[in-house]
């Protein structure tokens, strides 16, 4: 018998196509931003805002691990962002799960406030369990 064993069932024998957001572009794009194919028609060199929004990609590399930020990408909507993320960030067998998050939905700490935000806990070793000595007679520590 071949070393590759028996052929498995196809991934989705039900042969249904998932489409979470089939026509987002229809309403959003027709009035404001043009989708990609039309964008390439604009004069070369014309600096304009990217018609696709920015998404942050989080990949979970295996069961039991957390999703880790892998990078970002452009996509017209969430459904395409997931697919682009699959193509860009899991093409070398890196993941078992992907999250995409609109970059504008992320609030981040201010790099200039590093001192007031992150330096305060330094030196406060009493916040760590190892600071304390174990009392005599206490079990299961």
């Amino acid at each position, binding site marked *: *018998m*071949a*070393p*590759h*064993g028996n*052929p*498995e*069932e*196809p*991934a*989705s*024998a039900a*042969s249904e*196509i*998932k*489409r979470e957001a*089939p*026509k987002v*572009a*229809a309403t959003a*794009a*027709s009035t404001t931003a*043009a*989708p*990609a*194919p*039309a*964008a*390439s*028609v604009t004069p070369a060199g014309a600096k304009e805002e990217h018609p*696709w929004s920015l998404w942050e990609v*989080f*990949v*979970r*590399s*295996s069961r*039991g*691990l957390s*999703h*880790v*930020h*892998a990078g970002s*990408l*452009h*996509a*017209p909507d969430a*459904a*395409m962002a997931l*697919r*682009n993320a*699959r*193509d*860009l*960030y899991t*093409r*070398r*067998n*890196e*993941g078992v799960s992907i999250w995409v998050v609109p970059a504008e939905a992320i609030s981040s700490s201010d790099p200039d406030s590093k001192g007031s935000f992150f330096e305060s806990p330094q030196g406060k070793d009493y916040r760590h369990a190892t600071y304390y000595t174990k009392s005599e007679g206490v079990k299961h520590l």
Partner: protein
Amino acid sequence: MTTKDTDFAIEGHGDISVGVHGAGASGDGSASATRITPGNALRPEDIALEISRGQVKPSEDVAEFALRLGDDGLMLAQRLGHWISRAPELEEDIALGNIALDQLGHARSFLTYAGAAWGKSEDDLAYFRREHEFRSAHLFEQPNGDFAVTIARQFIVSFYQFELYTALTASTDATIAAISAKAVKEVDYHRDHSAQWVLRLAGGTDESRARIIQGFKLVWPYVDELFEDDELTARLADAGVTVQPSTLRDSFDRLTGEIMAEAELAIPGVPQAPGGGRRGKHSEHMGYILAEMQVLAREHPGASW
């Protein structure tokens, strides 16, 4: 790092380094979201190994059939490869490149297997056959056109290949079944990718809608050829190696019809091309593709890097 607690000893996969060292349950902070593992799947090299050990050898009919499937994938991979660095967006550039590589992978497996019947390698078949010796259907060699034409072509190809490979997972030929079992998962994604784009181009702007309508008009004449039965498929269907292509047509029509209806696109009422690719009669585009694809191997026979 204390002990190596993963053991990847997979025969025939020794040439790719496996960089996984127990980052799993320990919650190791250095666990990367982009670490590289090759995984374990059937590769053309595995088939070549089986052939060299004399474990598999296709009959003349099966080899001829594998040649058809391999040539379909090879021509499409060559076409899609042309999009690299030219797609409308970087993300789409990589998506099309991925699909091209999937198709090339299927082609390599099928051609490796087919070649075993005649003592030829996948490279012999890809680079040193002439136009009339190729067995791909006309759809696969059609020009890329604009992005919409490429998507329309991919849409038809993916839905056809999905039905075909699904049927072939039950093939009485173990190697054909194994190649198809791997391919069907990849083609399933190609189907989803092209369907997503058909919906978006049709529902986007007036421009994008006009282009996808025109795209389907250009490639639809090559649909019938995909589902043509002939003597070879009849013999192989009797042997349980494949099914008659015509039996796949209903599912193809139904599933593509659903997407087309949702996209509010009509099936183009264009006449069907005569075909002939399975008998080595190709369109005027074929010679140019082969020239580009084969020139290096023919200029420098036996070269390697």
